[in-house]
């Protein structure tokens, strides 16, 4: 995990430029994500955090640059290669993006059914196993997404992201809209899952507590670039004005005080 001498780069972003019309959102961004780490990705609202994430997972086109995931650039590879990469990641969207016309059970089984040919019994048992991994139980299986609370939706969406046992999970603001206790639970859930399943986690977040408690490394997006990437200590020591304001603002003091004690 983090701290090993040789670290395996699982996502490599080089010179990535993304823009819409006249507006350039990302300008020659470089970023590395190492295998087995939890990377917290921060930046001001509208700085392009979600744009970077969506570009990495292939939802947005880029103007220039390369993105290599497991050594493969999905844009410049065959359909089969791209599918094999897509099969190895899971994405948790900000609003959950559960299929509203399918029950929780069907939502969880949908990707498995498409990619693997396994028995209905195994599908059912694994749907339950994934639900229990994210801290829910069988009582939600037959519910529809519109009947779930915000926290439950996030958990079910995480369970669906994990349905195929991915190696990387992308989380877009996983704790937004959750109460502090729920957010704390979700953080420890992500840390537990990361340990249990050996995941690599790419987490876009604004939650300073998440950054302190679960993230191994933090990357910061500002002025259309990744201006810093490193551990919490590096961030706190930085003199960059935006970083200083972000990590030393009033809202961060409490988190700073509590942070090191509970860091993993």
């Amino acid at each position, binding site marked *: 995990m983090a701290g090993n001498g040789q670290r395996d780069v699982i996502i490599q972003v080089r010179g990535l430029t993304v823009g819409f019309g006249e507006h350039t959102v990302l300008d020659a961004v470089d970023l590395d994500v190492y295998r087995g780490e939890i990377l917290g990705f921060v930046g001001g609202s509208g700085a392009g955090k979600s744009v970077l994430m969506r570009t990495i997972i292939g939802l947005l086109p880029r103007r220039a640059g390369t993105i290599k995931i497991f050594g493969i650039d999905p844009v410049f590879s065959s359909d089969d290669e791209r599918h094999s990469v897509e099969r190895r990641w899971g994405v948790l969207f900000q609003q959950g993006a559960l299929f509203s016309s399918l029950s929780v059970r069907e939502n969880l089984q949908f990707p498995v059914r498409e990619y693997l*040919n396994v028995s209905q019994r195994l599908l059912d048992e694994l749907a339950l196993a994934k639900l229990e991994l994210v801290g829910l139980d069988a009582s939600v299986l037959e519910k529809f997404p519109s009947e779930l609370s915000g926290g439950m939706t996030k958990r079910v969406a995480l369970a669906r992201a994990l349905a195929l*046992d991915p190696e990387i999970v992308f989380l877009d603001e996983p704790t937004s809209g959750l109460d502090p206790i729920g957010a704390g639970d979700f953080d420890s859930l992500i840390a537990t899952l990361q340990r249990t399943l*050996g995941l690599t986690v790419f987490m876009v977040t604004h939650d300073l507590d998440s950054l302190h408690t679960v993230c191994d490394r933090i990357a910061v997006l500002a002025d259309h670039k990744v201006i810093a990437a490193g551990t919490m200590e590096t961030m706190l020591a930085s003199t960059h004005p935006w970083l200083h304001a972000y990590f030393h603002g009033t809202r961060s003091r409490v988190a700073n005080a509590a942070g090191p004690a509970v860091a993993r």
Partner: protein
Amino acid sequence: MSDILLEGSTEGERLRLKAAGAWIAENARGLEAEIDQAAQRYPGAKRVDIDVGRVERLDTFGAWLLERLRRGFSARGADTQVTGLREDYRALFDELHAVNPETLPAPQRGGLVHALAAIGVAVTAVGGTLAGIVNMLGALGLALGRVAVNPRRFRFTSMVHQLDNVGWRGVPIILLITFLVGAIIAQQGIFHFRKFGADIYVVDMVGILVLRELGVLIVSIMVAGRSGSAYTAELGTMKMREEIDALQTMGFDPIEVLILPRIIALIIGVPILTFLGAMAALYGGGLVCWLYGGIDPEIFLQRLKEAITVDHFKVGIIKAPFMALIVGVVACVEGLSVKGSAESLGLQTTASVVESIFLVIVMDGLFAIFFASIGM
């Protein structure tokens, strides 16, 4: 699959199972078959050791199948033990140890009872829709009353905007379709009437049919498909995104703010469209009579004057606002009954169009009886 992932050997009542290779999702199908076989092949084992030391990769699928294998023997009273589990897989295995598939709800059964239940649900749904329509008419009446008392509460801008959408923007397509329908009727009439030398009566047929029935029917059906569906989808999406709840909490009546302007726009727009549509159909009919039937435009107009009266025109135009009301009310009722899912939005939009076309035709029949009995 070529490589064997599970091997067994017995020593009396003691069974040793050796798991090897990749116990991962891709192999899940083969693995499941192997563990089921293993459970059947060694029914008498009293002590089972599962050695997983040679498992190279393990994910949730593999770990669960391992757990299922262990439970299968345990359930038959065997003493089971998993050995050689790598330290980094222990946490995953322990997590799955706690999963209890007996808590899985039984899948719902289909069959006859299910089909009968579906019929019952459909019948009550029809009743529900009718109740909803009556309810909406009442609510509209109340809102109209409040607006009449205090006219400044009426959303005039919103009404004009809707009128632009359902009326003005609908003119080209309505003109085109009614023109074509008028032309087709005239052509068919000429073709068949000519056989017994009655081609001039085509003018009577086109005139009466278009003014009394076809103009208003075609326009109503077009409006149900064009604007009714749009109303349902708009209101349904607003319902899904809690916009209607937001309006209510700000102290606005959604009926007054959203629905009244839409329905008034329809009631104003549909008669205008009906008039324009009828004119286009007569024009289409006249054109075909001239080019295909050899009836000069002057003769056509002369004959039309004799064949139709203002009553025919009135019958068509009087029906138009009622058709508009039906289309609008059904569309709004269906829009407000959208639930949280995308599927429900699609269902309600379909229901809105189908129901309003059905009711428009039923209403047209009732009007036919009514006008016949008052002699119009």
